[in-house]
């Protein structure tokens, strides 16, 4: 029995109602009702868990509280204790972060003559890119065109996207695919060489390129290897940037790195800086689990904000309605939308449908939140997570035995590892934090508003409007990473750096003091989430289990 006994009763109710539910059709809700439920329950519209920024370029704009805290955080650097006359690295282009955007930028900067240093928080290549399963959009089939790709992306983003960014992305897409193939990426193809392409929601042509369901991993393996093989690219692992350095001309001129294992600070002078730190999933905005990598803590947003970069759609976050809730090993991972397309229903603790399974993502996410909060009809796990059932076995009843095994093999495999048989058992789901739609404001080459600083990839914003289409995230990173790398290398050839300083940090701390919020705000960037259980719990163990001190660790 893979599911624990406390879930059995609910699963029996779900099974009992299956025959009836097979014929039960819940209509899609009207657009007025949509408006109401989204405004009331969708995290993007909820007023709770949000607040106005008190300082910086986006002052008075509302942001999720967790992000606001990072943006308004205290610097980890005391400017009076850092000697900028002693520089540890002096390079043309410094790249912060080593996901798809950072490494694409590194390769293009090097090709354009720059000496490149990559500073990365974890291992080289550890990033959200590595977990991207779906694929990469590029309009390269004969019946498709970059113009249609542009139109789809604009429509998906509710026409709030920045047009010049969307055109840059759609135009460069086929070139990005070819570039990666020339480096040795194995795209899925037919025997005649034509790409095997898929269509995701909101796309009018099949244009998503994949490498089985390891697309991001395959690309990262190649990019990481290529970076290692090239001269003039250095990288330092487990050494994130914690603050940007400016010069007296108001240009970004380097960064302070910290060795995560020894706490040693290293100032880097760089003629150009590319911040490619990705998204913010690990901030767990409004308490949501996430599909994101361990390092996705909004570091780049915090550092860029402090030197004067504004954010566009900083409060727009994509929640996917079907993230796994159980078992613990799979919390937050995506259950593909195909499950719902095949008839998988969303069911509450009493075996009743929560909403029509074909509602759009944001609507269904809102229904699930209502069911689990206001209505208390969710199922709570021993780890304290709550969710509703997605009735996968129903698919075989609707479409014939063997459908699940044939259509959803990797999903079935993933859960089988933990003795959950999705052919016969439902899966527990809840909305999961997937992507930051917005980010640092940038132009078509990812240059920010502050000279000397570029922000390609998820950390940059505008290209997706307030809603991103599937297959555009991995495309975004290659296209804008390459553009940023190329332009930064050119810029580095011309720019003259002045005297380095951290005056912006002094000014920032002064403003925090004046607003009397310095003590309330955390240090930022956060760098790593703190998932370690607190010592007090250990004391509880000591008492309840009457263990001798020394049998468990106390701090």
């Amino acid at each position, binding site marked *: 029995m893979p599911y624990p006994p406390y879930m059995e009763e609910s699963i029996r109710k779900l099974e009992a109602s299956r025959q009836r539910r097979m014929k039960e059709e819940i209509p899609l809700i009207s657009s007025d009702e949509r408006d109401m439920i989204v405004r009331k329950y969708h995290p993007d519209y909820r007023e709770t868990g949000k607040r106005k920024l008190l300082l910086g370029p986006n002052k008075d704009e509302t942001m999720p509280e967790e992000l606001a805290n990072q943006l308004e955080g205290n610097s980890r650097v005391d400017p009076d204790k850092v000697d900028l006359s002693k520089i540890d690295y002096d390079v043309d282009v410094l790249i912060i972060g080593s996901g798809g955007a950072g490494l694409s930028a590194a390769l293009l900067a090097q090709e354009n003559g720059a000496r490149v240093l990559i500073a990365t928080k974890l291992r080289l290549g550890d990033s959200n890119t590595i*977990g991207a399963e779906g694929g990469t959009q590029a309009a390269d089939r004969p019946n498709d065109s970059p113009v249609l790709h542009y139109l789809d992306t604009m429509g998906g983003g509710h026409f709030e996207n920045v047009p010049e960014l969307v055109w840059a992305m759609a*135009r460069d897409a086929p070139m990005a695919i070819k570039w990666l193939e020339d480096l040795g990426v*194995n795209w899925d193809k037919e025997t005649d060489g034509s*790409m095997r392409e898929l269509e995701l929601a909101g796309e009018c042509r099949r244009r998503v390129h994949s490498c089985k369901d390891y697309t991001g991993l395959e690309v990262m393996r190649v990019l990481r290897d290529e970076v290692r093989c090239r001269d003039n690219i250095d990288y330092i692992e487990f050494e994130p940037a914690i603050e940007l350095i400016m010069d007296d001309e108001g240009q970004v001129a380097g960064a302070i790195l910290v060795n995560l294992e020894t706490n040693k600070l290293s100032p880097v002078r760089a003629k150009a800086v590319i911040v490619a730190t990705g998204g913010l999933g690990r901030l767990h905005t409004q308490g949501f689990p996430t599909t994101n990598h361990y390092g996705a803590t909004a570091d780049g947003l915090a550092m860029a904000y402090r030197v004067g970069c504004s954010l566009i759609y900083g409060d727009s976050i994509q929640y996917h309605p079907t993230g796994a809730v159980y078992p*613990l090993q799979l919390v937050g991972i995506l259950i593909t939308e195909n499950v719902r397309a095949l008839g998988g229903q969303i069911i509450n603790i009493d075996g009743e449908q929560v909403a029509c399974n074909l509602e759009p993502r944001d609507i269904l996410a809102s229904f699930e939140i209502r069911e689990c909060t206001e209505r208390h009809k969710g199922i709570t796990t021993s780890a*304290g997570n709550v969710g509703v059932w997605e009735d996968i076995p129903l698919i075989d009843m609707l479409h014939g035995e063997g459908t699940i095994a044939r259509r959803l093999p990797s999903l079935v495999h993933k859960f089988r590892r933990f003795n959950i048989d999705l052919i016969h058992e439902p899966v527990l789901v809840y909305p999961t934090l997937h992507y930051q739609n917005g980010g640092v404001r940038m132009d078509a080459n990812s240059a920010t508003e502050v000279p000397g600083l570029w922000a390609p990839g998820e950390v940059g914003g505008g290209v997706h409007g307030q809603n991103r289409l599937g297959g555009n995230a991995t495309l975004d990173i290659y296209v804008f990473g390459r553009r940023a790398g190329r332009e930064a290398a050119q810029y580095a050839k011309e720019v003259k750096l002045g005297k380095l300083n951290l005056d912006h940090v002094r000014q920032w701390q002064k403003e925090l003091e004046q607003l009397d919020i310095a003590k309330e705000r955390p240090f930022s960037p956060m760098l790593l989430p703190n998932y370690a259980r607190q010592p007090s719990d250990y004391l509880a163990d000591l008492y309840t289990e009457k263990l001798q001190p020394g049998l468990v660790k106390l701090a």
Partner: protein
Amino acid sequence: MAQETRVAEEGKVEEKVKMLDIYIMGKRYKVPDAGLTIQAALEYCGYNLIRGCGCREGFCGACATIYNFTYDPTIKYGLACQTVVEQNMVITQIPFFPAAESLYNVGDLQPKEGVNKLAELYPDILTCFGCNNCTKTCPQNLEVMEFVSDAIRGDYEKVYEKSFDCLLCGLCAARCPQGLQPYNIALAGRRLRGAYLAPKSQHNLDRVKEIEEGNFDADMEKLKKMSADELRELYAKREIEPAL
């Protein structure tokens, strides 16, 4: 040794949860018997992870882990984020292994008749004596020794097929008595295959040429000049190709 304790989650679920003994680098801790992964157990015990933690979904290979049991010395291998702790498990992570990758230019990988590019890059590959430790070690259950043999024979296509799910965790290199690096050998093989042996995609090459020649610029200019309403109408009316 298992003891019972009460785990209360804000009044939502109350149940008796058994506690397990585990040994992190030889040191004993107690963790709830609630399906915790090795990674979650480390965090439960108070470790704030720096190394040995990545995507937390089984994709990145950062959390390679070796374990056995106090009652069974047989060494086992897994990813910390995907392996559930069990009673009397003895755990250590291998977050880094000093394998010296051969460096090359992807242009040098161009296959040549009668030359095994992989043996050129990794000459010691020929010293493999087939102990199969690499295969037994692989947390992805890949047939590692088989693709090493394929590499020795210069069968790049087979290397690509058999090694495709490799996460580069490095455990195979850590256990190879000959000091080989199966994961890096296979990576070079896959890159060679992708860049040179995979059939070329003519429609992609054609499209790249069309874009570079500016064939879509005029259409794009038209779209740019449209009012928001015109653009919305065009979007609503666009023809949707049926999905596969």
